[in-house]
């Protein structure tokens, strides 16, 4: 829908659709085997080649210079086939948004313009949590030359791929937290094996153990929550776009199956209770698409309450996606539960994507808190 309303987005939609069809669809199961199978480096390289790791960054910073609309269109298309790559794009974009919010576009530019491959362009980030909620377990000590970070960082997404990570840490003796850019190849940083998770298997995370690892403070000390909030307000809608794509993929698969599978002498689509389930799914897809459209517009136009629109979209579409993908398996019965079809992966991915940028209930409470303030 987004691309239909904004014709300039058509080319991005087509690019992402074609990329997903050619690079992701055929070997989806194989990619999902990670960390027990090989990582899809080749695909990630190609994604880097078509500019997926700098869509919302200005052209002068080495990016594509598009807004949230373009990012959403592409995440939607990719997630219809395999949300893992979308998770990589999302995490990297979130790190870039935090850097920009902290006034460090120069770092983004340096990274994007100097990167010769995907790993060089990516920045690891703790994209499944809002650091304010549980407070970082890493602590930064101020020295004459900068900062030395110690402690642990849980679930740094892309940490096994990237050479650098943007991580939250509290500065000793101060309230709140700040963001630091650290070099993951540093000897003072120990990366765990990739963390095995519910979904997005090919969007890997690692835990980090820091022992006085040098770090560069990003922006002002103690301003981490503000930078996170600014970036997250923009990126929530991108999470909604991933969910929307997963929903479309799940519905499409369920619908196709229902016209081919027989039960009681008829294609199962002819049984009204199953058709009702499909109808619910179809309605949910339409609603998700409309919500996504409205929210992405609000973010790009910076209209009134654009941040709330973005957050509401992620919360609502996330819930829809979890419901829909559950039914998406159910329509296929036992087959939906097997890895031969994409439904079980979509179910897992939807739940995992819902966890992006913090715990759902706390995001709801924060949403209400903001409404009360305004």
């Amino acid at each position: 829908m987004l691309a239909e309303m904004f014709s300039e987005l058509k080319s991005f939609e087509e690019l992402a659709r074609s990329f997903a069809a050619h690079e992701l669809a055929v070997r989806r199961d194989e990619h999902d085997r990670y960390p027990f199978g090989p990582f899809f480096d080749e695909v990630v390289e190609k994604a880097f080649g078509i500019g997926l790791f700098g869509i919302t960054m200005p052209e002068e910073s080495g990016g594509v210079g598009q807004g949230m609309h373009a990012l959403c269109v592409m995440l939607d298309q990719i997630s219809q086939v395999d949300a893992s790559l979308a998770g990589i794009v999302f995490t990297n974009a979130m790190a870039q948004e935090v850097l920009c919010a902290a006034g460090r576009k120069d770092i983004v530019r340096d990274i994007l313009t100097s990167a010769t491959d995907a790993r060089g362009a990516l920045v690891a980030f703790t994209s499944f949590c809002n650091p304010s909620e549980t407070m970082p377990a890493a602590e930064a000590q101020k020295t004459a030359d900068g900062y030395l970070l110690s402690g642990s960082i849980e679930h740094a997404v892309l940490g096994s791929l990237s050479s650098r990570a943007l991580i939250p840490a509290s500065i000793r003796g101060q309230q709140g937290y700040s963001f630091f850019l650290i070099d993951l190849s540093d000897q003072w940083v120990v990366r765990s094996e990739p963390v095995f998770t519910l979904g997005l298997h090919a969007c890997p995370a690692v835990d980090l153990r820091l022992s006085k690892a040098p770090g560069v403070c990003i922006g002002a000390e103690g301003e981490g929550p503000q930078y996170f909030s600014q970036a997250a307000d923009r990126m929530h809608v991108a999470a909604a776009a991933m969910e929307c794509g997963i929903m479309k993929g799940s519905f499409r698969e369920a619908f196709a199956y229902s016209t081919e599978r027989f039960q009681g002498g008829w294609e199962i689509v002819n049984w009204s209770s199953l058709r009702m389930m499909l109808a619910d799914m179809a309605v949910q897809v339409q609603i998700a698409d409309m919500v996504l459209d409205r929210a992405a517009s609000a973010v790009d136009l910076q209209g009134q309450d654009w941040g709330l629109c973005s957050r509401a979209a992620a919360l609502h579409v996330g819930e829809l996606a979890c419901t829909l993908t559950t039914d998406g398996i159910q329509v296929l019965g036992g087959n939906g539960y097997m890895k031969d079809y994409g439904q079980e992966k979509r179910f897992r991915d939807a739940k995992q994507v819902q966890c992006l940028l913090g715990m759902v209930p706390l995001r709801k409470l924060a949403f209400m808190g903001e409404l009360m303030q305004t």
Partner: protein
Amino acid sequence: MISSQECASLLGREPRFDDCMCSLQALAHLPKGVLSETKKAIAYARRFNDEVVRPRALDLDRLTHADPGYLPWDLVEKANEWGFYTMFIPRVFGGQGINMPASSYVIEELSSACVGIANVAFVHYLGVAGILASWNFPLANRIFREVAEGQKTGRPCLISLAITEPGAGTDVEEVELLDRARLGCHARRVKGGYIVNGSKIFISMGHVSTWCCLIAYTDLKRPSENTVSLAVRTGTKGFSFGKHEDKMGQRVCPASELIFEDCFIPDENVLCDTSELTWKTTRTIPQLVEQYIQYAVEVTRPGVCAFATGVARGAFEDALRFASDTVVNGEKLINQEWVQARLAEMYRNVVTGRLAYAEANYANSLPGGIYHILQFKPLYYYLKYVPQAVLDRFVTPLFGLDIVKKLLVRLYVDGQSMEDQRRCSGWASLAKFTGTDIGMKNCQIALEIMGQAGIRHERGTEKRLRDAKLLQIYEGTNELNRINLFATLIGRSIPGVRVFEEGEQGGRHVG
């Protein structure tokens, strides 16, 4: 106050007293020994969880991802060593003879730790139920004795139940749909037995079972009148295993493809040929097939509810632990009201699931249910306390007598009214979809409370969600079970109501 005639009339109105107060009716007749036996079984399951299940569950799940061809031989040996495969087989067949409804409570315990391992221990009882429901006690005795022997020797002997086919899942669970199903497992009558061709899929524990209770059809065009159940031993010529499914969850419990190619099954291994039972009963063959299916699923569906209740409980325990240990926004989660409300909802769900399977089991303890006769006090205590040697020498051989076979068929077939059986069937379906829906719900709430922590494998909660989804699918999808509940306990009071008739097909009058 009220005459007995009026009382009966008023209680016979919908909702009928007999159908909605199962526990109240059943408890009055329940032998007291059932309680102490059940408590011991639960305690034993808790010990098994501590010593076997919890230390292994996550590592094994991870192993199945690294090696999708993994088969749980080590776990099967453990479960065998602990006696789970004979625990609920009647003593008269060489088992331990613990009352069968207690299996639900044990299943809940094991599933609260790992529903995959719970299946490794208990899917075997699907096969046991399939064999018991066949009314062929001499053959049941032979197979169950082998299971008991397997426990003594340390060489596990498990039974799988093979119904689902590549082209028919839901259809084979309901006699009304059977004749419209795309079936392919054909049993041809030949001298001295049957020759089977076809395949079965999604057969839990197929690869590691010694016996398979196979449902096949002598006429694929009229399967409802031509259903046979056969006991097939692994290793029989013409019987082989195909692929081992790559499932989302419950990965430690394999789902197998079974292939039959000109597989000869001798008469001595025929559990039941419904067309040959007609001389002993007033039921039509489709009614017998329905009765056969219902006897099996009225036991297994509350069992699935118990699996799901265990999952719901495990998810609740995960969330409770996380909330107790985690500080968010400067306050322990457990002290935040929204979390307390969510935990209360999860606790309610667990209790609801438990009540549902318990009530379904009580329905099975009433006339029409498979436990009704087994829980007849004199019989229960006789089977419980008479020395095993006496049972083996004097009671078991009686099953070979024709008159005893006739008596058992009278008791279990003609002796049960279809109306009573439908109560059991309805409750089993209600329990199945109630429990499995709340199992999923609790996993989702737990993940919601836990956020990032919940999606990590080492926490175990994401595994519960993956495991739970299958419960809404097997033993008849929840959609089928909803329609079965309607057919058995709701639609009957509305004149002209039919079920399973959409799509210009036949269907059944229920009203």
